C-alpha cells in the first residue's frame, strides 16, 4: 500500500468535449484528494484531445496525463485497457474514479482484473473513511431495494460513479496544473476486438442524461406512434423523451432512450411517467428525479408510490389534455 498515492480520474471525452459526467468525476476526485491531502491526477485518452488538458485543470486536476494517438480515436476495449493499465502502473494511484458511462462499464471491470484488484461500479457515494483512510464505495443493490457500502483491501481502489450524483467544481481559470504527455506505446496486434463501425442514433433535442424534464413511456404506450404524443409534451417543456425497457426491446424507441438499471440513469427536475407500471429496475434509473408525475390506467401501479402527482386514466385522453392546458398556462 505504501507505494500507492493520490487520486486519478478518467477524463472522458464525448464528441470532442468534456461532458457533465467528466466534470462531476473531476469534482468528486478533487474532494477525495483534498480529504487525503494528496494530488488529483486525471487522464485524457484519445486522438486530438490534448487541447482539453487546460480545461481539466480549471475543473480541479493538479496533473493531466495526456495519451494522444490516432489509434485511440475511437474507444476499443483492448487498446484503452492497455493504456489505462500502463498509466495505473506508472502513476500508482490509491484511487481511480471513472464515470458510469458506456466506456466506464466496459473498461473498468477489465482494468480491475488486469490490476488484480476489484472495482465497484455505479456508485452514488464515495468518501474517505476518517480512520482507515480507505475509500467507502456506496452503491444501490438488489435493483435499488438496498444500498451497500464497500471497501476494498487491494489497490488501486477503483469505482465508477453515476451521472449527477457528484458535484462538479465551477471552472477556475486561475488554477495551476501540470500537463504530462505519455506515449500510448500501443502494439496494434494487441487490439483483438476491432471496432468496424459506429452507428450514432441522433437524439432529437436534449440528451436524456442532461435533460431537466423527461417524459417517459412504458408498455402502455402500445407502439412507436404513441410516442409522438410524448414528444409533443417534451418539446413544449424543452425536455427529452425516454422509455422503460419494453418499448425499447420492442423497437418503438431506440435502445439509447431506455431509462432504467440497464439503460440510462437519470436525475431530472421533473420526470413524467406515462403508461408505465414502475418496476424496480425502471425506478432505479429515475428514482432520483426531484418530482415525479405519473399517468396510468391502473390505480395499483407501483409508480404511484413514488410519484408526487398522479392521474388514473387512459393516457391517450389524459396526456393531450395535459399538454394543451400546460401550453395555455406556461408563459410564452
Amino acid at each position, binding site marked *: 500500500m505504501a507505494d500507492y498515492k493520490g487520486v486519478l480520474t478518467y477524463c472522458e471525452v*464525448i464528441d470532442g468535449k468534456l461532458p457533465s459526467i467528466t466534470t462531476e468525476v473531476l469534482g468528486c476526485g478533487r474532494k477525495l484528494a483534498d480529504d487525503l491531502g494528496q494530488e488529483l491526477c486525471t487522464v485524457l485518452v484519445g486522438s486530438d484531445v490534448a487541447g482539453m488538458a487546460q480545461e481539466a485543470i480549471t475543473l480541479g486536476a493538479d496533473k493531466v496525463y495526456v495519451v494522444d494517438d490516432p489509434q485511440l480515436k475511437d474507444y476499443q*476495449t*483492448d487498446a484503452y485497457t492497455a493504456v489505462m493499465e500502463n498509466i495505473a502502473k506508472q502513476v500508482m494511484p490509491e484511487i481511480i474514479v471513472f464515470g458510469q*458511462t*458506456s466506456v466506464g462499464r*466496459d473498461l473498468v*471491470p*477489465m482494468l*480491475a*482484473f488486469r490490476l488484480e484488484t*476489484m*472495482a465497484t*461500479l455505479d456508485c452514488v457515494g464515495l468518501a474517505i473513511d476518517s480512520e482507515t483512510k480507505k475509500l467507502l464505495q456506496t452503491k*444501490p*443493490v*438488489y*435493483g435499488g*431495494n*438496498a*444500498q451497500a*457500502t*464497500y*471497501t476494498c*483491501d487491494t489497490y488501486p481502489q477503483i469505482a465508477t460513479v453515476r451521472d449527477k450524483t457528484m458535484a462538479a467544481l465551477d471552472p477556475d481559470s486561475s488554477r495551476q496544473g501540470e500537463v504530462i504527455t505519455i506515449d500510448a506505446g500501443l502494439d496494434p496486434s494487441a487490439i*483483438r*476486438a*476491432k*471496432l468496424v*463501425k*459506429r*452507428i450514432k*442514433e441522433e437524439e432529437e433535442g436534449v440528451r436524456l442524461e442532461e435533460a431537466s424534464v423527461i417524459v417517459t413511456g412504458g408498455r402502455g404506450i402500445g407502439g412507436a406512434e404513441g410516442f409522438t404524443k410524448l414528444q409533443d409534451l417534451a418539446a413544449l417543456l424543452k425536455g427529452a423523451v425516454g422509455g422503460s425497457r419494453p418499448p425499447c426491446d420492442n423497437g418503438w424507441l*431506440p*435502445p*439509447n432512450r431506455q431509462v432504467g*438499471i*440497464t439503460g440510462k440513469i437519470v436525475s431530472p427536475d*421533473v420526470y413524467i411517467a406515462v403508461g408505465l407500471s414502475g*418496476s*424496480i*429496475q425502471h425506478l432505479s434509473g429515475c*428514482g432520483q428525479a426531484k418530482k*415525479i408525475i405519473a399517468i396510468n390506467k391502473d390505480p395499483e401501479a*407501483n409508480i404511484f*408510490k*413514488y410519484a408526487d*402527482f*398522479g*392521474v*388514473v*386514466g387512459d393516457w391517450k385522453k389524459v*396526456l*393531450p*389534455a*395535459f*399538454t394543451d392546458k*400546460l401550453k*395555455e*398556462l*406556461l408563459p410564452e
Partner: protein
Amino acid sequence: MNILVCMKQVPDPQASSSGTTVDSEAKKVIMPQGTPPVLNPYDENALEAALKIKDAQGAKVTVISAGKNMAKTVLRKSIAVGADDLILLEDAAFENMNSYETAHVLVAAIKEIGEYDLILCGRQAADTDAGQVGSGIASILNLPCVTAACKLDISDGKAMVQRVVSDGFEDVEAPLPAVITASSEIGEMRYPGVKEIMAAQKVRITSRKASDLGVDVSQLKKPNLVSLDSPPGRTTDCQMVEAETPEEAGADLAVKVRESQIL
C-alpha cells in the same frame, strides 16, 4: 463449435419489487417470502443467443452455473430450451460470491472443459447488478471481450457483434475464442414445451465441487461489505388528481403542477 453459457440463479426480480426489506444489523437483504429462484434474465438472453447460433449452424451448448443449494428444476430449464449439457458448480463455499470470486470459479470449470469457441454471459445479474463477471473471465483467460451485445453472428472463426452504447451502436469484430456479454435487446429466451420440460428432468447433469476444480474461494480477494441499508426512500405522498373525464383530469393536472411551480 462449442459454446459455453454462464448462468446465475437469482431471486425473481419481478417478484422483488415490493416487500423487500433490509436487515442492517445482519447486513442482509430479506426477500419477500416465497420469492422463487429464476434464471438471471440477462443470462437467459445469453442462452438464447447461443441457441440461435446452434439453430443456424449447429453447435454444442453447455451451460455452467455456480452457487450453493441451487434449484435444479430452474437450471434444467436451460436443457428444456435446447442446451446440450449442464454443469453445476455446487459447494457451500460458492454461496454469495462476488464478481471476482465468481469469475475465478467459472474459469476453473472452463479450463477443465478445455474446448470452447465462444463464452457467453449476461451483461449483469439482476440481484447484484455488478456486471463484471464476463470481463473478468476474459481477462483471466486473456481472451477478447465484447460487452452489451444486441446482435451476434458467427462466421469464418469470427464473432460479429453489435453492441449497445449510450449514443447508438457499435459494430465490433472479434476473433474466436471470445467472451461476449448479452444485453436484453439480443432477444428473450424461447419458451420450453411441456414435453421438453419433462425430458429435461431426466438428463444427467454434471456436478463439481470446489475441491474437484482445485479452487480455494477463501484465498480469493473479497470486498468488505461495511454496511447495508434501506435506500434513502422518496417520502412522497402522491396527490391524485380526479375529475369527471380523463380529459378534465389531464387539464386539472396541468393546473396543479403550475400552481405548485413544478413546471
